[in-house]
């Protein structure tokens, strides 16, 4: 670059003029300069106005800044059961707080509070330190859950306690605590990370948010909108004038499809045992009952737990916090034969005329695969109807072999297994539907045909949740629709009319109605015909269809090594499963039951389903007259509840 090349204006800008020479651009720049000048004048003028013309006024305001912003927390939406019973309410709770800048002498206040409500100086110091950096007019909470006595004392000595405030907060209260703990869930105080990630207009420090169950998944609807008041306060910090108020608007109320009667029946039937029940309306997918045993008391999370209480709860070997109905994964056992039957018929591996001979066992590869009726010498010639009714393993081994693992997996998925059902609850498990690709990926091994045999009777790698079992049964009950389970029937906005929840998604399972009908007839026979495995699920006046299942937890040989069934340790006993629907003519309820290490589906799980269906149809309970039952789960607290025994076992 050299000086001789210093600009020759017109030659530089290509086709255009050099900007500085272009009259349009000159004009634009001039305009810009004027705009900037105007802006500066306006801003300086405003500064002049605020600081010089109005300065005196604002100086006065700032010297005794009396305008406070008081938060109005919204009250949380209520939760009702299907028949309008209140499940989650808000009850007043009193909190002792202090407004730091109004206190004056902390030493005096500390002494007085110690005398009145027994607050130690350390507690007060700790609370103050925690609130450091917060504006001095924001209340600092010193103690939650004041009792009536403390409340009265504080009110009496109110004038000697400058800065002290008793805040009324509405606190969540669960009215059917152990009956719907997992479904409704509980709240927890918002933590720092959540606070940072949330909208400041909605959440503030000290707010409670859903942590589990519907409280968590429907947090947005339930929470409500915060309000506020601008108030003027006197030197003691008491409000003397309300300047402006925007009331908080409460959260919307939820009415669930869950019915408390059914929850009660489930809780009673599962008392002292570990297991879960899921029941839904096969026509809509509305969940009627979702119960997991053992349960816990969600109120403990609201009022606060001692370390010991929490330790007991979280270290209980029965995991009461786990919602087994949606996140417990179990081998489906013989309930899976519903899938094998449907798949066999749909894929034309079998038809109504297919008859397989069951000799009590079946040779395959270099071993024998037994039928559960091995001791009785097998089922003889068996068609699909008899096979379902009597849960003949050999029939389904052969059907499974004809189908192969991947076609079985396809139909398991079509019936909703292997993925979350989409119920609006946190922590739902997907279950597992194995296929040859999965095996290769997971174990780097080829799928063996022998495994297909186990798969066909529900004993392989397949895992299902009780809710998935109920949903799978609903497909048979409603003529081929895979429903999405929903819990909320209506949402009622504050002061508004109930709004029905959006229609849940249904998908058609690609199976011919006559094939489903065959399966349905088989399921009805399980309960109602002689030799059926679930006669314990019969209800007076209502025809029930169902399928039992017994899922081995350990190998048969190992289980037998304990000798008599009664001697098998609890944790090695098989899970008892049962699925059912009723009435078979026009089904309105589909149920899935798992009793962990319960023994047998027919004897141990079927009565649980029957109890829930009784409650649903309003049939009174039969008088208990049988002798006590020995099988009870080892309770954390040694309080084994005796259950009436149900003699007679099925598969």
């Amino acid at each position, binding site marked *: *670059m050299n000086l001789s090349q*210093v*600009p020759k*204006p017109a030659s*530089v*800008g*290509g*086709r*255009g003029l*050099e*900007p*500085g020479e*272009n009259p*349009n*651009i*000159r004009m*634009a*720049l001039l305009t*810009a*300069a004027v705009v*900037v*000048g105007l*802006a*500066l004048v*306006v*801003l*300086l003028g*405003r*500064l*002049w106005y*605020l*600081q*010089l013309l*109005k*300065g*005196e*006024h*604002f*100086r006065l*305001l*700032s*010297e005794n*800044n009396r*305008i406070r*912003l008081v938060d109005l927390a919204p009250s949380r939406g209520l939760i009702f059961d299907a028949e309008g019973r209140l499940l989650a309410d808000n009850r007043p709770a009193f909190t002792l707080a202090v407004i730091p*800048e109004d206190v004056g002498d902390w030493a005096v206040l500390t002494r007085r509070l110690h005398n009145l409500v027994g607050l130690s100086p350390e507690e007060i110091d700790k609370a103050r330190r925690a609130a450091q*950096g*917060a*504006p*001095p007019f924001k209340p600092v909470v010193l103690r939650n859950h004041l009792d009536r006595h403390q409340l009265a004392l504080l009110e009496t000595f109110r004038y000697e306690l400058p800065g002290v405030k008793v805040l009324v907060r509405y606190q969540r209260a669960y009215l059917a605590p152990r009956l719907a703990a997992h479904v409704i869930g509980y709240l927890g105080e918002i933590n720092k990370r959540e606070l*940072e*990630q*949330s*909208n*400041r*207009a909605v959440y503030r420090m000290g707010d409670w948010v859903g942590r589990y169950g519907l409280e968590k998944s429907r947090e947005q609807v339930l929470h409500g909108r915060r*309000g*506020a008041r*601008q108030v003027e306060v006197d030197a003691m910090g008491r409000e003397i004038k309300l300047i402006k108020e*925007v009331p908080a608007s409460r959260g919307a109320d939820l009415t669930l499809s869950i019915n408390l009667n059914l929850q009660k029946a489930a809780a009673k039937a599962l008392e002292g045992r570990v297991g879960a029940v899921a029941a839904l309306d096969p026509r809509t997918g509305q969940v009627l009952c979702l119960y997991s045993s053992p349960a816990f008391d969600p109120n403990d999370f609201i009022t606060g737990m001692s370390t010991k209480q929490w330790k007991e709860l979280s270290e209980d070997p029965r995991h009461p916090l786990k919602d087994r109905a949606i996140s417990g994964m179990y081998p489906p056992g013989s309930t899976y034969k519903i899938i094998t039957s449907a798949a066999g018929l749909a894929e034309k591996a079998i038809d109504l005329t297919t008859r397989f001979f069951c000799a009590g066992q079946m040779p395959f590869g270099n071993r024998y695969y037994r039928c559960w009726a091995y001791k009785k010498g097998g089922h003889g010639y068996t068609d699909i109807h008899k096979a379902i009714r009597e849960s003949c393993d050999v029939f389904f081994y052969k059907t499974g072999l004809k189908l192969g693992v991947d076609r079985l997996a396809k139909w398991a998925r079509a019936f909703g297994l292997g993925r979350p059902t989409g119920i609006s609850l946190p922590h739902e498990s997907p279950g597992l539907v194995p296929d040859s690709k999965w095996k290769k990926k997971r174990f780097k091994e080829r799928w063996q045909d022998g495994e297909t045999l186990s798969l066909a009777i529900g004993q392989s790698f397949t895992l299902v949740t009780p809710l998935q079992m109920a949903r799978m049964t609903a497909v048979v009950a409603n003529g081929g629709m895979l429903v999405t389970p929903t819990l909320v029937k209506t949402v009622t906005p504050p002061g508004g009319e109930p709004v029905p929840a959006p229609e849940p998604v249904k998908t058609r399972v690609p199976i011919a109605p006559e094939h489903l009908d065959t399966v349905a007839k088989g399921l009805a026979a399980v309960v109602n015909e002689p030799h059926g495995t679930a006669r314990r699920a019969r209800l007076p006046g209502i025809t029930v269809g169902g399928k039992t299942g017994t899922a081995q937890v350990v190998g048969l040989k190992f289980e037998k090594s304990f000798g008599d069934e009664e001697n098998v340790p609890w944790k090695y006993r098989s899970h008892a499963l049962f699925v059912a629907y009723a009435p078979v003519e026009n089904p309105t309820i589909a149920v899935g039951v798992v009793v962990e290490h319960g023994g047998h589906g027919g004897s141990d799980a079927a009565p649980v389903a029957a109890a829930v269906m009784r409650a649903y149809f309003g049939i009174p309970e039969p008088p208990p007259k049988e002798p006590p039952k020995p099988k009870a789960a080892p309770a954390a607290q040694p309080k084994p509840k005796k259950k009436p025994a149900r003699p007679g076992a099925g598969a």
Partner: protein
Amino acid sequence: MIDRRLVSSFDWLLLFLVLALGACGVINLYSAASSFTGSGMAVYVKQTYWLGLGLVVMLAVAMIGPQRLSTIAYPFYFLVVILLTAVLFWGKVIGGSQRWLALGPMVIQPSELARLAVVLVLASFFQRRDQTEPYRLHQLLLPVGLALVPALLILKEPDLGTCLLVLMVAASVILVNGVKLRDLAIAGGGMIVALPLVWRFMKGYQKQRIFSFLDPESDPLGSAYHLIQSKIAVGSGQFIGKGFLAGTQSQLHFLPEQHTDFAFSVLAEEWGFIGGMVVLLLVGAIVYRGIATAYRTKDRQSLLMVIGGTAMIFWPAVINVGMVLGLFPVVGIPLPFVSYGGSSLVTTMAALGLIQGVAMRRFVFHRP
């Protein structure tokens, strides 16, 4: 390597103005954030480091110069668009909006880079379509689109303030670049006609958001309360202020975000009209320096880069001070050099680098 003329043409006055304003900012932050007992480095120290880093960025951008910046304009623009998209998926959520992206140990705010990218890409775009007569509407569709893409991505975060800034900077560049008056009138009229239509298609909650933006009084929780406290702070400063570290409004935390968005109210409270005026005049001087540089540019891309850089300082300053003084609705936009914030400071310094880069070369001939 460095041409002596580059050094001699360096705009030392502009540098001095910037340093003076930066110093005002640091001193003010010492007070504004003094009552925070947070851990780690004090805010004013951090701001000093950012200022140092900003100067390096400014010099680097200036040394690179408009020519080479123009060649990387498009790649840089697309990188920023990718980052803005990534933010929507993997960004860190703070205060209900998703603006930050973690790249290894570093956390960046891509929306800050967007203004720079839009200025560069527009300068490069119009340089290639240089013409003497004002631009017609159809010629502007593409550049407007180039500005809208990042602006809409930022709006989605949501960060309305930064979105508006991108649009205002882009509009400044496009308007100075020249638009046929008749076309400008048509575009303006079109927008006015389109507004009710857009309004009709908006959902309830979106309308609500607009309402509370236009009328903060409807939200006494947040903005209106903040505004009252900010006005009290500024007004009570009177002519000479309450004195350094003596602002009651700020020291007692009546002010929200007092070291970022409301830093100017702390300054006006403690230094009074004098202090506020000095800061405004410094900002004004920097902006006029930019416009003066624009007058002497020799090619279109230099002109537009200078205008863009100047707009990047002018608009946030006007909006921030206007907001703090209760003239505009509350939007979270920092005041350049005065508010605390690394990304904002470095971006502003890069904008100055654009101006300096052109000013340095005013006696050097180069092929556009």
